[in-house]
């Protein structure tokens, strides 16, 4: 079997035809939002913003997991890392996110045991070989990540690993879409829905949302042809007055999603209210431990309570994540806030929109300065 199709989804000729179609069909000025950090990266990497007609503005929504993590949660992670005999395990993106007065990276430099892992299973290994230490995994991410963490909790139970626990700061995408549309200042004409979250939750998970808040939505993959096809579908819906859900990524996304992953997720976690950076509290948008697994809940084990800490002064991450502002509207952007000295998480994460603006030298809100 070949991987030929993956290359074909990068085909330049096909992409060009799609761009022509988009140009031909797009009349009204529209604002389309993606809600997935991997989309942000793909859109910039392939220069998609700069090749679209001027009528189309692309916005990056609350889809970068680290960026939507509340300041109070970041502070709690840092606090926990200072406890004696605790090993913190995390995905790399969290390391440099500034808390109110430190970051995990700074704590590590001071000697705290904080380790980057590639999978939650790696954290189990660390727990196994360090029986006299408490190993805590910082669970940040959406429905794509949560089942992997759930699988590690179930394994820890089977392995009888009593020194392993997880902070579940996982979040759900659909409640965030709802919250965005309920926010007055937010102005969005269509959503590019996250491909890999949709692999897990399935297209069916959006049906209730679209029924209650009709808006053009297309589930999108990550290759240039995928993204352009999705934008084309959105434009066609908008120009013809449709407000439907379409799946432009059927090779990966089914109506039901991944039932094994969903069952892992629902076995270990349940929905509850969570605070999102920039948006605030959203009902049923967080994933927290089910009663049967609360022995693995690090917030219980270490009696962590989140404080409502204010976000860094002057940082516009919140408005950027809701599409109200762009990084260029932030007075700190590139002056005080740089990838080397980030003020907010949107400049830290490789999936953050401020980091992408900086990396691709965006000088206007349409594309990169290399626009021709």
């Amino acid at each position, binding site marked *: 079997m070949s*991987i030929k199709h993956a290359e074909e989804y990068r085909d330049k000729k096909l992409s060009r035809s799609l761009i022509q179609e988009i140009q031909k069909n797009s009349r009204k000025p529209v604002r389309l939002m993606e809600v997935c950090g*991997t989309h942000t990266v793909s859109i910039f990497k392939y220069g998609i913003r700069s090749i679209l007609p001027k009528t189309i503005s692309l916005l990056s929504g609350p889809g970068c997991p680290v960026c939507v993590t509340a300041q109070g949660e970041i502070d709690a992670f840092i606090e926990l890392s200072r406890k004696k005999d605790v090993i913190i395990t995390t995905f790399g993106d969290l390391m440099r996110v500034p808390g109110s007065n430190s970051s995990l990276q700074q704590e590590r430099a001071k000697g705290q045991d904080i380790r980057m892992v*590639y*999978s939650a299973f790696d954290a189990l290994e660390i727990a196994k070989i360090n029986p006299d230490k408490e190993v805590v995994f910082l669970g940040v991410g959406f429905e*794509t990540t949560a089942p*992997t963490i759930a699988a590690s909790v179930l394994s820890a139970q089977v392995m009888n690993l009593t020194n392993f626990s997880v902070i579940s700061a996982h979040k759900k995408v659909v409640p965030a879409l709802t919250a965005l549309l309920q926010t007055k200042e937010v102005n969005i004409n269509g959503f590019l829905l996250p491909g890999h979250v949709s692999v897990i939750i399935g297209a069916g998970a959006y049906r209730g949302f679209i029924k209650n808040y009709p808006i053009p939505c297309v589930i999108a993959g990550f290759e240039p042809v995928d993204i352009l096809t999705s934008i084309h579908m959105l434009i066609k819906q908008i120009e013809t007055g449709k407000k439907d859900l379409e799946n432009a990524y059927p090779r990966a996304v089914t109506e039901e999603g991944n039932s094994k992953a969903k069952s892992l997720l629902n076995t270990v976690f349940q929905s509850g209210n969570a605070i999102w950076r920039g948006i605030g509290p959203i009902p049923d948008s967080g994933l927290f431990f089910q009663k049967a697994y609360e022995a693995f809940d690090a917030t219980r084990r270490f009696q962590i309570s989140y404080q409502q800490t204010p976000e860094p002064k002057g940082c516009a991450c919140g408005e950027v994540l809701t599409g109200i502002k762009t990084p260029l509207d932030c007075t700190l952007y590139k002056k005080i806030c740089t990838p080397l000295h980030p003020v907010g998480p949107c400049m830290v994460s490789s999936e953050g929109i401020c980091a992408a603006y900086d990396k691709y030298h965006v000088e206007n809100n349409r594309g990169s300065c290399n626009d021709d």
Partner: protein
Amino acid sequence: MCLAIPSKIIRIVGDMGTVDVDGVKRDVSLLMIEEPQLGDYVIVHAGFAIHKIDEITAKETLQLLKEALAFVEKDDISN
């Protein structure tokens, strides 16, 4: 966090497997996919294969897209 490119399964040992993506090999859990086979292309996220790419649908989607675009081009000429 996500790897946007599909990875090929080159080894299976129980619930674990090794995948190859552009020459880089990684161990992944196969817990979340049905009947993994050597040579399958999977989407990998945080050390887990989360989906087996449906090759037939992948080809069909491209075919439909090409037909749609070709159709549009033809339409243009006739106008």
